[in-house]
């Protein structure tokens, strides 16, 4: 049983997705508890898997017992285990926190919503755990398709944004598939470790270079890397609350994981940095992404859309860190995947509870919320401090690694972009805090909240939100442990440049 952890993490949500969609025909109220069970099992097993990987270093799993170059193998090392734990645990917390939002925004659709929710997790955990390039494509499309459907469940502009996301996302997936095709032509293998052992003789072949570029563009589209980010703000901004806070923290981070996996395991560090010399241009592009995301965020008048542009900027942090080409930068990038997922979840959950009470997220409607919803706003401040990078929140530590990595590599443009974006984040969040702390509360009638006074969000939302906010600080304090026990051994094993 314990040997099957990697497979169970992916398969259990899949089974529960079918059960939930079946049960929805009989009794709708059972959907939520069943989803909790499925998600909870998957999260628990991920934590166990992380514990095992932390002691043994590597867990291998062969699907159906087929040996790896022929069958599909799961190759779980420190990086997979860390990311899969983040994905499942955060999805579990989000599931509990957004229950009331789901009941309100997509009534009568609980069965469809929760089965899609579980299928999305199947896609993400599969992407993270798999050791097979084509399997990764299929699960990538599973995650993308479910996210299109989930976003499309919203009202108003949501279906149109989902359709635009679908067009762009499909092109991204196809580019990745094309890159895998090139690799398959050259090596005749689809297993990541196997491809990595076959590739070194062909590093100078233009087909391998094109394979890398196709994969890079494909993954770049899916992660909304500037200038391929155009779909993100609308898709995440107009999605139903529960969907926004599920997809925004997880999808883009998992795509950054895929890129790091491709660099570290498949194409190898030597190929990406020494032969292709892609480091410099990619770091400059990331710096541009950071600055552009920050500037666009300044122009937003809606809290959720502002968060969306902050994500675009944060993707720049992670891509830049990964492409700095030194140990510190890569550590920062991996740490930031972990931290940014928690920070983004915290911010989107705050937006969710505010929306639940205020029925709007325009900045001028936040007036006086500090007196009405003190706990939610305190959590928003915690998330904001982490995004800005104030110690002891976790955002500070990953930004510290990124900045020192940038200085080490002599990429002063990247360092400047990081500092600029931190300053812009200060402005952004202090504007929000100023409005909500000093502004006088105005009751907006006629927006569906008539008669109901604005007050603190219900406990079912507050408790998960508090857990996430405390998590920000706890993770910050344990950064040393994460770096020493999980990230350093990983980079050492991959033979990362000194």
């Amino acid at each position, binding site marked *: 049983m314990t040997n099957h952890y990697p497979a169970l993490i992916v398969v259990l949500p899949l089974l529960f997705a079918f059960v939930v969609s079946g049960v929805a025909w009989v009794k709708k109220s059972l959907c939520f508890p069943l989803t909790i069970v499925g998600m909870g099992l998957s999260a628990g097993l991920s934590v166990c898997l992380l514990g095992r990987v932390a002691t043994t270093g590597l867990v291998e799993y062969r699907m159906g017992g087929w040996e790896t170059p022929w069958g599909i193998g799961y190759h779980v090392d420190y990086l997979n285990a860390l990311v899969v734990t983040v994905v499942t645990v955060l999805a579990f917390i989000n599931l509990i926190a957004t229950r009331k939002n789901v009941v309100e925004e997509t009534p009568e659709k609980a069965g469809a919503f929760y089965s899609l929710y579980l299928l999305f997790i199947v896609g993400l955990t599969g992407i993270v755990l798999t050791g097979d390039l084509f399997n990764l494509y299929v699960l990538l499309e599973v995650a993308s*398709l479910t996210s*299109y*459907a989930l976003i499309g469940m919203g009202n108003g502009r949501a279906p149109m944004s989902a359709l635009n996301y679908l067009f762009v996302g*499909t*092109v991204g*997936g196809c580019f990745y598939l094309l890159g895998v095709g090139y690799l398959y032509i050259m090596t005749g293998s689809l297993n990541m470790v196997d491809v990595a052992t076959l590739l070194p003789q062909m590093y100078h072949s233009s087909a391998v270079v094109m394979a890398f570029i196709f994969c890079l563009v494909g993954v770049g589209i899916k992660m909304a890397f500037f200038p391929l980010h155009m779909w993100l703000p609308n898709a995440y901004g107009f999605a139903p609350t529960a969907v926004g806070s599920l997809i925004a923290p997880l999808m883009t981070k998992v795509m950054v994981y895929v890129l790091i996996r491709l660099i570290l395991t498949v194409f190898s560090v030597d190929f990406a940095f020494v032969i292709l010399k892609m480091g410099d241009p990619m770091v400059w592009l990331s710096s541009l992404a950071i600055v552009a995301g920050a500037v666009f965020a300044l122009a937003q008048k809606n809290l959720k859309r502002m968060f969306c542009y902050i994500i675009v900027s944060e993707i720049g942090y992670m891509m830049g860190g990964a492409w700095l080409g030194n140990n510190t930068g890569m550590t920062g990038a991996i740490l930031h995947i972990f931290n940014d997922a928690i920070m983004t979840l915290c911010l989107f959950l705050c937006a969710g509870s505010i929306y639940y009470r205020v029925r709007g997220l325009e900045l001028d409607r936040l007036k006086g919320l500090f007196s009405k919803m003190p706990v939610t706003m305190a959590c928003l401040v915690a998330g904001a401090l982490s995004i800005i990078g104030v110690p002891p929140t976790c955002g500070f530590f990953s930004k510290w690694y990124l900045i020192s990595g940038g200085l080490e590599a002599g990429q002063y443009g990247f360092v400047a972009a990081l500092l600029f974006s931190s300053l812009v984040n200060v402005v952004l969040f202090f504007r929000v805090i100023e409005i909500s702390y000093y502004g006088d509360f105005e009751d907006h009638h006629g927006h569906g909240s008539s008669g109901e006074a604005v007050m603190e969000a219900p406990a079912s939302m507050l408790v998960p939100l508090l857990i996430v906010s405390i998590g920000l600080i706890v993770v910050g304090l344990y950064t040393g442990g994460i770096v020493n026990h999980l990230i350093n051994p990983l980079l050492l094993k991959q033979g990362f440049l000194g």
Partner: protein
Amino acid sequence: MSDLVVTLLGKYNYWLCVILMMIGLYAMIAKNNLIKKLVGMNIFQTSIILFYVSIGCKKGATISILEHGAGHHGVDPTHYINPLPHVLMLTAIVVSVSTFGVALALAIKVYRKHKTLEEDEILMQLRSE
């Protein structure tokens, strides 16, 4: 010149895929109607499926089914086409069909709200909101 012709014609399967891909991409970018864009997207996906199918082929080889078992001499791989890319594409076809299904469902939702599928009209409606 003759070298160029040989290079172009020798890899005609790749050229056909590139042309199909560009047709699809053009339709996705230039067309105004959402359904036409969807068809363009499907052409784009199909071109990659055909690319994969064509890389499994070998000259003078047959489908990879052994009629009388492998025998003592084993199997000569040059006599059989590579079935793996074809099998992979079964999955890719499923992905492409389900993407098309989700996209059509979303298009219906868009149509119900805006009463049109022309993108410029939808954008005008959104701006006037």
